[in-house]
């Protein structure tokens, strides 16, 4: 069938996705056919699939197909695609380790969970590498629908189905808006390819392409929804609280990575010529995200909800990079990698503390965690410090990167808003540290400790990896920075 595409075909270009898909299918098929009691084969398939995907993503970067377009420009193998794909795969790998207890506890549905995670990754990976709005839409939907299901996968719990329902309703609403934006883009340009507008910009006979501006608003809105930028954020706290702990880190991280990749493509590439139009409103969105996320995070008593709001603020910070234009692409990618690692690890800890299938994770559960489980407390503290953007952690380098670009791009006020909000944000990040380290666990009887949560081995490995990553990158981020800068 691909013969018609001629030279435009490249298996390598879609190899990572194919590996993931193969793994997903294998897991499902094995589950259906063999009805296994444990998940060891699932693990093997998944590892193979993810490993292959990572290997081929690196291969894409290293081979001559890099910086080329394939399938008649439907897919690209450019820096953004490769970086984001790698980021997605990192998120996936970490999340798989974190989700393993959930996979086990779900029984048969564990296979479906794995498959959905793999498929969601494929979806966002396609979103990040597509050169066509419809392709992008499909990727977005593959990812999103997987996430809707993930949100409700422990459906016996009331909060889980509420989360799934909210996520689904709002998600499909946002998707409709996105695709209407695509339609208007088509109406304005006659093409669905991203670079179409760029080539048309010179020959536009109308001075104010209203249709395109509305299209821009709607396309942006659809993706801003995914990355939880305020005021498109309302679903995030409810979903992150209600969805099963084991999967929520994955859900939050992967949508953010994919969403920002898409946003970057659309804003920088398709609407690159309209930068003066979209920069102020997008900057406003960034500011609003930062402020709303920070203020509401302060008011939270549930750690997962707090992380959701902080995620809104982080979306704002990353948006500073988007606002700064394509020159900030390395910084945005860096931020995404750094932040999602922390996010997955933090949610991972919450999954251990509150149970893998839990909905919500009250702060009181963390009191005295440092005594009960130093590894969990230490990691979570480090992640909190990292997210808050303290120096010597990767979070600082990431924040500094986007701030610098923002300042360079002329949105100094936004940087200052971000800086001040970072200070307020210390409050809620450090409050977790307070609970874990400064307060004593209150047992049933005096002197007895409440149950000590024990992370599983994969989880521990993931947490330690995340911790090392956070500190190592905080101390010496140059390899990673050089990598994203050279890829992008």
């Amino acid at each position, binding site marked *: 069938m691909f013969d018609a595409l001629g030279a435009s075909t490249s298996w390598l270009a879609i190899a990572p996705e194919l590996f993931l898909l193969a793994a*997903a299918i294998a897991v*499902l098929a094995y589950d259906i056919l063999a009805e296994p009691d444990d998940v060891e084969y699932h693990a093997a398939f998944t590892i193979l699939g993810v490993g292959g995907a990572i290997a081929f993503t690196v291969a894409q970067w290293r081979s001559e197909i890099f910086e080329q377009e394939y399938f008649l420009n*439907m897919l690209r193998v450019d820096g953004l695609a490769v970086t984001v794909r790698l980021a997605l795969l990192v998120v996936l790998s970490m999340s798989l380790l974190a989700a393993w207890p959930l996979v086990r506890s779900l029984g048969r549905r564990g296979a*479906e969970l794995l498959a959905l995670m793999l498929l969601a990754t494929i*979806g966002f990976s*396609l979103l990040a590498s597509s050169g066509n709005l419809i392709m992008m839409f499909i990727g977005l939907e593959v990812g999103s629908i997987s996430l809707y299901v993930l949100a409700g996968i422990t459906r016996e719990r009331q909060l889980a189905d509420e989360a799934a329902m909210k996520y689904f309703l709002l998600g499909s609403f946002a998707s409709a808006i996105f695709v209407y934006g695509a339609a208007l883009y088509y109406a304005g340009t006659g093409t669905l390819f991203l670079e179409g507008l760029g080539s048309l910009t010179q020959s536009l006979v109308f001075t104010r392409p*209203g249709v395109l501006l*509305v299209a821009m608003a709607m396309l942006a809105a659809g993706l801003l929804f995914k990355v939880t930028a305020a005021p498109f954020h309302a679903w995030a706290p409810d979903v992150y609280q209600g969805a099963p702990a084991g999967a929520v880190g994955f859900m939050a991280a992967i949508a953010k990575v994919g969403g920002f990749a898409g946003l970057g493509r659309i804003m920088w590439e398709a609407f690159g010529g309209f930068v003066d139009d979209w920069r102020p409103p997008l900057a406003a969105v960034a500011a609003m995200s930062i402020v709303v996320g920070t203020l509401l995070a302060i008011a939270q008593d549930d750690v997962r909800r707090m992380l959701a709001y902080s995620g809104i603020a982080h979306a704002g910070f990353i948006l500073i990079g988007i606002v700064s234009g394509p020159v900030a692409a390395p910084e945005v990618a860096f931020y995404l990698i750094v932040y999602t690692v922390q996010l997955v690890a933090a949610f991972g800890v919450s999954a251990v503390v509150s149970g893998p299938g839990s909905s919500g994770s009250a702060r009181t559960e963390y009191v005295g965690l440092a005594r009960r489980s130093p590894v969990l407390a230490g990691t979570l503290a480090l992640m909190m410090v990292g997210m808050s953007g303290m120096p010597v952690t990767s979070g600082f380098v990431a924040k500094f990167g986007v701030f610098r670009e923002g300042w360079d791009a002329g949105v100094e006020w936004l940087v200052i808003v971000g800086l001040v909000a970072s200070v307020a944000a210390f409050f809620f990040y450090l409050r977790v540290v307070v609970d874990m380290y400064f307060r004593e666990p209150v047992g049933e009887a005096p002197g007895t400790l409440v149950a000590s949560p024990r992370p599983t081995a994969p989880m521990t490995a993931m947490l330690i990896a995340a911790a090392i990553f956070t500190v190592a990158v905080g101390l010496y981020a140059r390899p990673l920075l050089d990598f994203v800068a050279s890829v992008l």
Partner: protein
Amino acid sequence: MEAVLFMIFGVVAVVGALSVILAKNPVYAALGLMATMFALAVFYVINLAHLVAAVQVIVYAGAVMTLFLFVIMLIGVDRAEDTTETIRYQRPLAVGVGLAIVGLGIAAVVSDEWSWTPLAPAGAVAPNGTMQAVAEQLFSSWAVPFEAVSLLLVVASIGAITLAYYLPSRRRKEDSDA
């Protein structure tokens, strides 16, 4: 001629759409939606999108709406719904948003600046959306998206199974404390 058709089916489409959001009974809403879909199918034909029109009728009006009605019946919500608003500020907000959009539309009509002038290449002929024409495109330049939607279907089916397939025996004790 086309104008007449546009008027007639335009009214049908709008009325159908309005009945979706105004009907107290979901069944009426579903039927209204179906009416709109049929009206749109007519427009597709007018706009030379023959295959689309056919698919619209078969898949959308036929399959999807049937699924809707099936679920309506299954979960027995085919009774009238109280449509008084209970969330504060929801109605005014919705109305406000609506008015803003209408305003935008009017502005778009009035203002020259925002007028929409498609740049059809000189001598472009409106394509005839026959099955063959569509298929040629679908299997060449749109091949990847076409393959990708299969993922979508996989996801959808997994989702449906996961969410709706109910296995009481598999319920774990720790899952039931909600």
